[in-house]
């Protein structure tokens, strides 16, 4: 057996560097980023507020679905209550802005930290549960949080919090503030795609996928599963917390029923499953595709009241016929695409 002397380490670091640079040579990730930026530039070029709102909703879903994918797709833990991080971030952000007059920047960062912290504490408590038990616990957490906020006076109880209209003056008026929110969301979206890709192509990501495939075997091979799972959960919570602040800042007010909508969590699951869980591209395509579909359903006479049941049926069909989702299906069908589709 070769002893791990100096010579071996010197040899082994070099390919490591080449590999990490190689991750950036994947055309798939650049293509994805360019596409997202082009789509985001569209409302800026046309200066149309209605297109901006459509793209805003789409990008918001991309961030949430990509983040959810880290715990759901890479690690294999189904989080049914992921919207809790979106809600808690939004609440803390609006609280800081309305009570202490904090700037939007500080509020966004605080929202991200609060969501990450909550995920860390929850991770320590419920990530030891496996399979359906974890999924049930996440629903419980979301419902418990809503009930708690409903009775929490500093956060306005059932009435929630509202931003004084004056707040927007700091950002050059309401119209400008809406555009600012949009630009910030575009940056966070790029960040979420990069994060998803970096996790996927890292050693940490390999450990997560090992946990998804067989947690006991991963443990025997040396993956420190409690830590890996907790960090995956934290990473999947931070960006939802940040966009929560952004969304409710733009909205102007926040209520418990808006912040912790369980069916939004389920729609996020549909997006990830539709695009393909465990891939970088899947949640992006799934989120964009689902929001397009939803926009169409909401405006159609026939479906406008039952658009959520369409989501349910869609989830059923995906799980029955293409469990790997669109991107997963393509990767299986055309193995050559494995290198290109991240």
């Amino acid at each position, binding site marked *: *057996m070769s002893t*791990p002397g100096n010579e071996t380490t010197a040899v082994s670091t070099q*390919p490591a560097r080449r590999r*990490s640079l190689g991750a950036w040579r994947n055309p798939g990730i650049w293509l994805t980023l360019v596409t997202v930026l082009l789509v985001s530039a569209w409302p800026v070029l046309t200066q149309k507020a209605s297109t901006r709102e459509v793209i805003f909703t789409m990008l918001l879903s991309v961030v949430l679905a990509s983040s959810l994918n880290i715990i759901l797709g890479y690690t294999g833990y189904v989080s049914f209550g992921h919207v809790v991080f979106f809600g808690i971030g939004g609440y803390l952000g609006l609280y800081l802005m309305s009570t202490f007059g904090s700037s939007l920047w500080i509020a966004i960062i605080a929202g991200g930290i609060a969501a990450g912290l909550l995920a860390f504490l929850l991770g320590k408590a419920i990530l030891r549960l496996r399979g359906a038990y974890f999924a049930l616990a996440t629903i419980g957490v979301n419902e418990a949080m809503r009930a708690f906020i409903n009775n929490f006076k500093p956060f306005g109880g059932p009435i929630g919090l509202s931003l004084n209209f004056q707040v927007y003056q700091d950002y050059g008026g309401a119209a400008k503030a809406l555009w600012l929110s949009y630009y910030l969301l575009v940056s966070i979206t790029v960040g979420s795609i990069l994060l998803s890709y970096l996790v996927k192509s890292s050693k940490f990501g390999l450990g997560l996928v090992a946990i998804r495939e067989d947690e006991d*075997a991963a443990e*025997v*091979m*040396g993956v420190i599963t409690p830590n890996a799972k907790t960090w995956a959960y934290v990473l999947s919570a931070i960006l939802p917390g940040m966009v929560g602040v952004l969304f409710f800042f733009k909205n102007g007010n926040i209520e418990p029923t808006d912040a912790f909508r369980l069916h939004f969590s389920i729609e996020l699951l549909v997006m990830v499953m539709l695009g393909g869980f465990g891939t970088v591209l899947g949640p992006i395509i799934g989120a964009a595709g689902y929001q397009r579909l939803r926009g169409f359903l909401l405006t159609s006479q026939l479906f406008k009241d039952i658009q959520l049941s369409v989501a349910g049926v869609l989830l059923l069909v995906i799980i029955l016929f293409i469990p790997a989702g669109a991107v997963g299906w393509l990767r299986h069908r055309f193995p050559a695409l494995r290198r290109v589709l991240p």
Partner: protein
Amino acid sequence: MILQVEGISKRFGGLQALSSVTFDLPEGQILGLIGPNGAGKTTLFNVINGIYPPDGGRVIFREKDVTKFKPYHMARLGLARTHQIVRPLNELSVRENVMVGSCFGRESHGLGAATRIADEVLKFVGLDIRADQLANSLNVAQKKRLEMARALASRPYLLLLDEVLAGLNPSEITAILETIRAIRDQGITIIMIEHVMHAIMNISERIIVLDYGEQIAEGTPDQIANNQKVIEAYLGDPKLAERLMEQNNGDTRDS
């Protein structure tokens, strides 16, 4: 001593799975662990490996008391194992499976070095041409080799092999025994559980026999084959031992 097992006991409800098992394992040996089904062999592996904490006794690995350690601690200290029922990471390629072993094992390599080690180890176990296939596309014999490759990629000091020969045909057994000898020759100590008697008699330096969680015999393959207690409890038929020894000698002459 690479491993000292001191009075390990383990009870599952009303079943005494292990009672006061004690042995020492010097470096560089192959230790065979045999016994009828349900004798507690895999349980002993699970205790050494950190999957179950023992109810009594101590496990000392490389001069360190590791009794309360988790499997991932053990992996990082240089203990690797294969599973009786293979556990490939199905949706990962064969190479990625082995990289997990290398990335999170004793040497904790980065992805680049892990890729290189994975290719090296896959060549060693004869799976190099399958490196890019998904792990679930392998057959049973190949999956057993994959288990060994993953374990080896962590560069362990001690390797626990749990029935790697079960379900293989004679030519596959011969091939895998060669691989096991080659692993030993690299300086890795091995404990193997096996039911294929002629193979384990042939390859082990020392054998421990478990029966209902009790350690009923310990010694060289010759001593074990002639041990009255073992013959009664395990082999059943005294003539069988003689036949096995003949077969064993025949194998040695062949190789």
